[in-house]
């Protein structure tokens, strides 16, 4: 089984911070987003205090992977999680997508080569959430 992240929405953690602050501050979400785009240290601070069980903050993004796997491996994944979308490309290749919440909840509930690969794949796009996922693995 091989998984590669091939596309994603930009500024994933900026959007997580925007989502968190939208619910609790009186500022408009577009204002918060624009402000946070210029303040990466603020994004890190806000995401650092994220309570990921409030999963909706992790849903404002999309990650797209290419997966090389057998039909059995994909069947197991689709039975395990309802929130990843699979499209078959050929006998062994699949286009897979979902948001960070799907990754976090799947990784919290199951430990498989696919969940390990999904967690590893988000390190670059969402380092704060990746750290959380590494912590729960320990």
């Amino acid at each position, binding site marked *: 089984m091989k998984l590669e992240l091939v596309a994603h929405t930009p500024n994933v953690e900026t959007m997580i911070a925007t989502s968190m602050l939208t619910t609790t501050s009186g500022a408009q*979400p577009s204002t918060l987003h624009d402000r946070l785009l210029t303040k990466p240290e603020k994004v890190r601070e806000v995401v650092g205090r994220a309570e990921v069980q409030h999963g909706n903050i992790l849903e404002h993004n999309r990650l797209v992977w290419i997966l090389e796997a057998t039909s059995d491996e994909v069947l197991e994944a689709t039975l395990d999680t309802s929130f990843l979308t699979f499209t078959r490309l050929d006998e062994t290749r699949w286009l897979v997508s979902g948001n960070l919440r799907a990754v976090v909840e799947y990784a919290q509930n199951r430990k498989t080569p696919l969940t390990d690969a999904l967690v590893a794949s988000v390190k670059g796009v969402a380092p704060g959430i990746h750290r959380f996922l590494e912590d729960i693995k320990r």
Partner: protein
Amino acid sequence: MNARLLAHTPYEELRDGFSELDLRQLLPHLAYTFAVEKISRACSHQLIRHRVASFSQQSQRYITVKRLNERVVKPPTVDQSETFDELVRKASEAYQKLVESGVPREDARFVLPNATETSLLMTMDGAALFHFFGLRCCNRAQWEIRRLADAMLTQCRDTEPEVFENAGPYCYMLGRCPEGRFTCGDMAEAVERYKP
């Protein structure tokens, strides 16, 4: 009302990388995040019925509603209505009194009207967004959510015309009206209006 497309999946990268897939197959893998601002709570209630979507909405548990009379959406049909303004004034007074007397905001908000403004982040995948436009750009949709859907569609077409040139109310997308006996009867006008 303000709607702004903040982020989206890069369609061209996926189209070029996976040429074996057509747009219909790629749509579920695309996502669009909007800042939806200063709509009424009545409108946000309609919005969240689109369940294949994600929402993060301003919380009335955490955010105190100040100057309610400046933070309501007033439908054009009640523009001259003193009854509407009077109700908003009384609701505002009641809310302030409750908060000042120590009632938690989460309970004081029970007196606020559906007209109270709210803002939120909304993310939909491409397929869900096409369905949203199909229903909410329709002449039969309520005016506020139709205005919102039109604003969102305009931004989507400006950003990704190849994806959204065929999006619009269902009569525009299907070439027929699926509303049956509830049809607006003006499909030709609607179809013409949504032509890019």
